[in-house]
């Protein structure tokens, strides 16, 4: 007894030793910079005008809300972007998950092929889809002309009417597999006897989907929608490399705007303030979303 007690005491520092490197690096590399970004947001800090650097109080925030039409335009674009992406990815992801959950010959191979864009990065998505959308060498113009949808070649990514939709489609290509993977995993946890009971009661495909499949998937759908919403809100790689926010800021989301202001133009103070506002907006969205679900707002 005594020996064991002693040993437990001797072990007291082991967990701390194990987590110490992680804690220290998270504090230094993530928490300290976040603290710093809040500090920077109250300053003028710019590479272009270093003589103006210094504490300016709330000036950056006041400017964002009163003098910056591009901020509101980016906010609107971000909301549109997240909305379209999450809804379409969920709908098509669910469809793909249901298709791939059926038993058929060659299912393993088909699953790998359909889900593989999950592993493709934003920049590579840009590469592949730029070759598709390209006005002179792209296959999309060729196909659409054959089908009679269009008469002349369209520069999909340079045209203000088509650019947003084009970027949405490219991101869908990469995002659908995420939902498909999450929902496919959840589909496999539905116990078979529930379906059998439903069968005995004589329910058809449609009833089976709405009374069994969907309720069983509810938690997964809420969880993956939230994750994806946050992810799409913050996503920047693909839009930045595909359109850099253009043409005419049609695809400038908040992260793009912030990246251009700070890293590319060197206006760190204003960029930090944009970052703080963006983060708080995201936080409000997440809290609202979780409240809505807890109170059962999405149930019916």
């Amino acid at each position: 007894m005594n020996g064991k007690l002693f040993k437990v005491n001797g072990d007291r520092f082991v967990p701390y030793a194990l987590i110490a490197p992680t804690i220290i690096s998270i504090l230094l590399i993530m928490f300290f910079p976040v603290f710093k970004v809040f500090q920077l947001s109250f300053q003028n800090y710019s590479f272009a005008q270093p003589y103006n650097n210094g504490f300016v109080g709330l000036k950056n925030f006041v400017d964002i809300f009163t003098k910056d039409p591009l901020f509101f335009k980016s906010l609107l674009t971000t909301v549109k972007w997240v909305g379209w992406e999450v809804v379409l990815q969920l709908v098509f992801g669910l469809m793909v998950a249901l298709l791939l959950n059926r038993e058929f010959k060659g299912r393993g191979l088909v699953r790998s092929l359909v889900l593989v864009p999950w592993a493709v990065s934003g920049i590579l998505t840009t590469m592949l889809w730029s070759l598709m959308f390209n006005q002179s060498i792209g296959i999309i113009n060729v196909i659409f002309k054959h089908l009679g949808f269009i008469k002349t070649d369209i520069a999909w990514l340079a045209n203000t009417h088509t650019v947003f939709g084009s970027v949405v489609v490219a991101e869908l290509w990469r995002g659908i597999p995420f939902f498909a993977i999450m929902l496919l995993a959840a589909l496999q946890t539905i116990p078979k006897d529930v379906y059998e009971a439903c069968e005995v009661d004589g329910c058809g495909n449609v009833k089976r989907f709405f009374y069994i499949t969907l309720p069983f998937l509810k938690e997964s759908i809420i969880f993956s929608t939230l994750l994806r919403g946050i992810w799409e809100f913050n996503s920047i790689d693909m839009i930045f490399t595909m359109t850099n926010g253009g043409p005419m800021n049609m695809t400038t989301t908040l992260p793009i705007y912030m990246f251009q202001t700070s890293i590319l133009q060197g206006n760190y103070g204003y960029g930090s303030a944009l970052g703080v506002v963006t983060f708080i907006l995201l936080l409000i969205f997440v809290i609202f979303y979780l409240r809505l679900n807890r109170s059962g707002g999405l149930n019916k």
Partner: protein
Amino acid sequence: MNSISRATSNETIIEIQGYKPASKFKKIVPNIIIFYLPLTAVLIFVLLPFLWALSTSFKTQPDILNTAASFIPHPFTFENYHSVWSVNKFSVFFKNSIFISLASTIFILILSVANGYAISRYQFRGKSSFLVVLLSTQMMPVMLFIIPLFLVFKSLGLINTPLAIIIFYIVTQVPFNTLLMKGFIDAIPKEIDEAAMVDGAGRFRVIFGIIMRIILPGIVATSSFAFIGCWNEFLVAFSFITSDQNFTIPIGLKFMIGEYSVDYGSLAAGSMIGLIPPILMFAYIQKYLVDGLGSGSVKG
């Protein structure tokens, strides 16, 4: 295994429905409409960008610009691969990407196993705060701390070194992997640790010898995730790395688009090179991804 039996049970339900007299033919037609047609459409949507880029990568410049677009290169050439590998320095970028991703993955694994072990095996003060810290890191947008981190690394002289992005990848990926490792270690009975320690093994050997060997399959899968994550990362590498000697593949690709005359063939060839490692790994972990998520972390 579970998944297969469950999916089969779905199928039997469908077949039971089909057992109404003389309905064999009736079953095939709806099957084509609700199953094979959508599945084919999905496959085309997913595979078309890959196939178009693959075909472009083997074409000569005049063939690429030929308006009668064809998927079969004529003549067939390896010139694009050769030029992107040596002229565009993709041999260097590939080496950098491999080195950075491997180094990051190794440290991510070691730290995640250490953290996972501490959380799984010990009750200690601050444990729940540690978990909160880990989870909160998952919500922070990179855009929020990229500015101050850039300034910090700059003052430390780490900008434009592989070390800067390796540190960043480790810190951002350890939290998620820690939670996965905790799940794996929870599944191992504590008696195994105790038996090993009675036999005279130290804590260190228990964790990195015995435990790590038992959860090896899980480790292989999670390290593939980590590797793909590092391999694909664009934003931080793009912001922190400035000279082409240290570029990773995503940055190399980005600068290829920026060049004055766009060499589509090389662009496509470079994309193919960048795609190979993540796609191979994905093919390997695909089954685990779908089954593992269902049985483990995100139960519906």
